[in-house]
């Protein structure tokens, strides 16, 4: 697997793509109606969720089926602070983030010593346990009822302003993600992905690196959860179950996990497709399944892989 050069669709073009994309997203906010604004907001949040999956799977080589746990913990931490304790909004963001980070740190101790299929199963165990803890802790979390009526401050209540708020937060997170994977730390993560044993010999502290990556990915997922809660005005324990955790997996594969633009592109494609397909048929799962088959068998790099190959061909 190639490492660094996959960052760029075209070498050195990341900043141009970034600037164009950001400009486009700002303009889009002014052009679209409320329905499509909400879709765009969801796409942004989901791309953040997918980034958390991609950091673990695409860059560290650990297949996680448990990102939903941190999504839910972030969302619950935020919502409980906001609704139950009436803590001011910005502080709630910090509390949600801290909660998801802490939970990732604790569960990380259990997960990071495992590899391959065992890691995947352990993350399923973690996410289901989280689901049950939220589900059974009725007095605190509201159990099956979830928490309703999560309103952001008045100014963010309109879809358009919330969209811009999400855009700013997601952009910030994306920038951090970019810095992480292009740092020496990110390089050693990729080194672990390629060959963990050799990494150990070179002197990389494999376990500690994986644990750090795990916490970071938990923080990204938690941030996605925090943004999701006031967006849907509602959180439920189902955010933590394994079906919710499989969503970023699909989006990641759709976009391509080893490319920095993959999660964003995958999430946008996924959410738009969802909105488009559910408009005329209820058989969305069937379509997902078939798309997944096609991607795995015929276009292993996902959408970004396809675009990359096409660009290379048109250049040659």
């Amino acid at each position, binding site marked *: 697997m190639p490492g660094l050069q996959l960052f760029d669709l075209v070498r050195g073009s990341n900043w141009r793509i970034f600037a164009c994309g950001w400009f486009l997203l700002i303009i889009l906010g002014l052009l679209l109606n409320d329905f499509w604004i909400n879709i765009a907001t969801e796409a942004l949040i989901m791309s953040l969720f997918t980034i958390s999956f991609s950091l673990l799977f695409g860059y560290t080589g650990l*297949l996680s089926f448990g990102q939903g746990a941190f999504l839910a913990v972030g969302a619950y931490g935020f919502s409980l602070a906001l609704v139950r304790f009436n803590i001011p909004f910005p502080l709630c963001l910090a509390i949600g983030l801290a909660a998801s980070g802490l939970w990732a740190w604790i569960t990380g101790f259990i997960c990071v010593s495992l590899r391959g299929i065992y890691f*995947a199963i352990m993350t399923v165990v973690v996410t289901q346990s989280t689901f049950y803890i939220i589900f059974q802790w009725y007095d605190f979390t509201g159990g099956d009822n979830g928490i309703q009526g999560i309103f952001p401050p008045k100014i963010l209540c309109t879809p358009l302003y919330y969209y811009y708020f999400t855009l700013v937060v997601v952009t910030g997170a994306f920038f951090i993600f970019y810095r992480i994977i292009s740092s020496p730390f990110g390089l050693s993560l990729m080194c672990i992905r390629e060959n963990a044993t050799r990494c150990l010999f070179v002197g990389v502290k494999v376990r500690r690196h994986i644990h750090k990556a795990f916490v970071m990915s938990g923080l990204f997922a938690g941030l996605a959860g925090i943004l999701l809660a006031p967006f849907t005005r509602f959180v439920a324990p189902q955010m933590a179950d394994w079906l919710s955790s499989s969503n970023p997996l699909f989006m990641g594969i759709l976009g391509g996990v080893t490319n920095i633009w993959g999660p964003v592109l995958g999430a946008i494609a996924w959410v738009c497709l969802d909105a488009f397909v559910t408009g005329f048929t209820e058989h969305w799962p069937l379509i997902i399944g078939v798309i997944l088959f096609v991607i795995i068998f015929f276009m292993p790099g996902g959408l970004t892989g396809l675009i990359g190959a096409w660009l290379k061909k048109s250049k040659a």
Partner: protein
Amino acid sequence: MDFLNLVGNQVFSGLVRGALYFLVTSGLSLLFGVVGVLNMAHFSLYMIASYVTWSFSNLLQDYAFSFWAASILSALVMCGFAWIIERLIIKHVYERALPDQLFITFAMVYVFEDLTKIFWGSLPLVVKKPDILAKSLDLGGHSFPMTNVFVVVLGIAIGLGLWVLLAKTRIGRILRAAYSHKEMITALGVPIHRVYAIMFILSVLLVSIAGSAWTMMGIVEQGQGHSILIESFCVMVIGGMGSLVGTALSSVLCGMTYALAILFIPKMAPPLIFFLAGVILLIRPWGLMGKVGRPH
């Protein structure tokens, strides 16, 4: 005395649960051990088997033996179905990396679940019980529903049958060799992909029996496989992937844990199995009876 009665009943219900776990998990675990593919769609096949059983028993509802005939027919149909999937999809999965295998079988989950919704609708269905299973068995003042007794007996019978198959027959020896010495038996000229195909069909046969048995215990519905999926993974991890004895042991262990936990700490009962699996993964990742240091 009353308390002892209660505990006795719970022990029996633990056995029932354990038998069901074993029926569902044994195929999955053996498939992983022999072929190295973790089939996420196993549980969708479980649900489809229940639906197929319902269809046949509905077709034959005028006859007394409808359920038994339906079970056998559905097992045959499922084996045929398994053969087709094996040729179309699973065949291409063997040599791929682990994440790809998971993604492909995961895609199958979505396709299968939606197809069952198209064929059978989303309403829950009930299979008519044969007369003998509608009664209950009286033993020393206890009364056990026959369906539960049936599932336990079935679990034990299938377990013994599998053991005989693996330990005493030629194909069993090949399957065990494929589990432990893959290169060697390939070198000896055993067509390994055919062994894989047989193992896949065997696993579907097992899960189809489980699906038919389930129709006697509860309703057939969408998402039926999801409720047992995670627990079944835990059972597999605890027992050791690919180990028949380990799976049997951990099925009973998990069933008992659940049933007794319901009695004493009801709120903690469902996650207790997860915690158990978590602990096992930490101290013995290869499970109770699994092979130490397996590369998967």
